[in-house]
């Protein structure tokens, strides 16, 4: 973020008109902590002065209400021409935006790939329809031009291949910024008379295209610069301070969120060794357990946006409330899912006298309790993971 600020400041200091665009997926993954981080990101996004933000599937991770709250609170210019609320059938965002810049009138719209799935943290209550991008744009572009747009800019949250196909199907787009891609284009690229731009990979890159437009608004010349924000761009010191302050605040919130699930059980003298260590002697058992839901327990939380919910992590990871157990930061993050030591205990306590099996048997009801597993029966459930 601090390097992003430097790059954007440098661009503003060139003294030429600037059009700020985002091709979608501004928001983070589905978790409560990421949602708070996204809230801060939105605050900064307003300060950067974006002119248009396309819609990506991540931007609905926290639900439509959250997206609208961010739009309203931080005046974010989101736009989408092909995502509709399944309940009412209406577009959930402005269909397109008109932006005057440097004497030229830009018409900016955004489309998402219908093949992408939108999963919100409240997925049961919200569903969306994604219309075919080509059909939508064939209808929309003439209307944008009639409304005064001279230069058409498409924020294509479609990935590289689908975007290129779309440009061949729908002529008349002057600039296409591609999202849902990991490939930045370091040089000028033209696809059927459309400037094809992409700068992605989780904020590592930011692109700048110096564009010259003719009187009809069509692109005449372009010069592309891709800023690699890894090392070659200096940190903005003020932004560094702000980001660090927010990170500290988020860390305190993260620790506080564990509430009664603090890692206090067990012993500091023992260690979880992870299933990789167990596998060295128990390969067959490891392979068998890989086929059970235990081995994908953390993934089921992630899909539901619960991967940072302590009350869930306690049963979907290994040793969450134990000293040295699961944490979402290294080294504890290697203890995701219900691994061997979740039932058998610390690997450093390994015994061969039968105590480990007895301990494992009694551990089932720690998670398979009346509330979470009302039909639990040891013999039935053991049969599913027998090893």
């Amino acid at each position, binding site marked *: *973020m601090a390097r992003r600020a430097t790059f954007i400041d440098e661009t503003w200091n060139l003294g030429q008109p600037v059009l700020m665009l985002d091709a979608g997926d501004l928001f983070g993954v589905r978790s409560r902590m990421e949602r708070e981080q996204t809230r801060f990101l939105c605050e900064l996004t307003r300060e950067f002065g974006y002119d248009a933000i396309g819609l990506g599937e991540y931007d609905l991770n926290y639900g439509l209400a959250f997206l609208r709250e961010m739009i309203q609170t931080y005046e974010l210019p989101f736009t989408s021409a092909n995502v509709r609320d399944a309940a009412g059938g209406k577009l959930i965002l402005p269909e397109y935006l008109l932006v005057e810049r440097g004497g030229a009138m830009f018409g900016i719209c955004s489309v998402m790939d219908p093949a992408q799935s939108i999963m919100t943290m409240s997925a049961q209550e919200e569903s969306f329809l994604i219309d075919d991008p080509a059909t939508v744009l064939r209808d929309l572009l003439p209307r944008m031009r009639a409304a005064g747009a001279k230069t058409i800019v498409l924020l294509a949250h479609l990935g590289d291949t689908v975007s290129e196909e779309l440009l061949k199907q729908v002529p008349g787009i002057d600039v296409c910024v591609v999202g849902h891609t990991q490939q930045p284009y370091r040089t000028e690229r033209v696809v059927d008379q459309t400037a094809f*731009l992409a700068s992605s990979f989780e*904020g590592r890159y930011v692109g700048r295209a110096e564009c010259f437009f003719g009187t009809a608004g069509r692109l005449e010349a372009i010069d592309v610069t891709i800023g690699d924000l890894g090392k070659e761009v200096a940190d903005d010191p003020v932004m560094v301070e702000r980001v660090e302050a927010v990170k500290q605040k988020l860390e305190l919130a993260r620790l506080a969120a564990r509430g009664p699930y603090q890692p206090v059980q067990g012993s500091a003298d023992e260690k979880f060794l992870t299933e990789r260590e167990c596998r060295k002697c128990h390969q067959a058992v490891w392979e068998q357990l890989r086929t059970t839901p235990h081995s994908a327990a953390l993934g089921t939380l992630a899909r539901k946006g619960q991967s940072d919910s302590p009350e869930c992590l306690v049963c979907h990871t290994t040793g969450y409330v134990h000293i040295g157990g699961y944490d979402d930061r290294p080294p504890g993050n290697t203890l995701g899912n219900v691994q061997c030591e979740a039932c058998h205990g610390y690997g450093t306590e390994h015994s061969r006298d039968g105590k480990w099996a007895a301990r494992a048997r009694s551990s089932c009801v720690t998670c398979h309790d009346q509330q979470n597993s009302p039909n639990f029966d040891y013999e039935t459930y053991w049969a599913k993971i027998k090893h």
Partner: protein
Amino acid sequence: MTTNSRADLRAVTTALVTLLLLSSVPVALSQQTDPSWQPVNIVYLGDVHGKFEPCG
């Protein structure tokens, strides 16, 4: 004589270049004053995925 020829040649060349430059000035100026030829810098991002900073 040779020196003079070179000097003459240099003078002629200079005059030609000057003439060329002068003749191109109105074209350049007309482009500069035409607002449609003012560059617009498009700054673009995507797939930020909620990140403050890149991983690693």
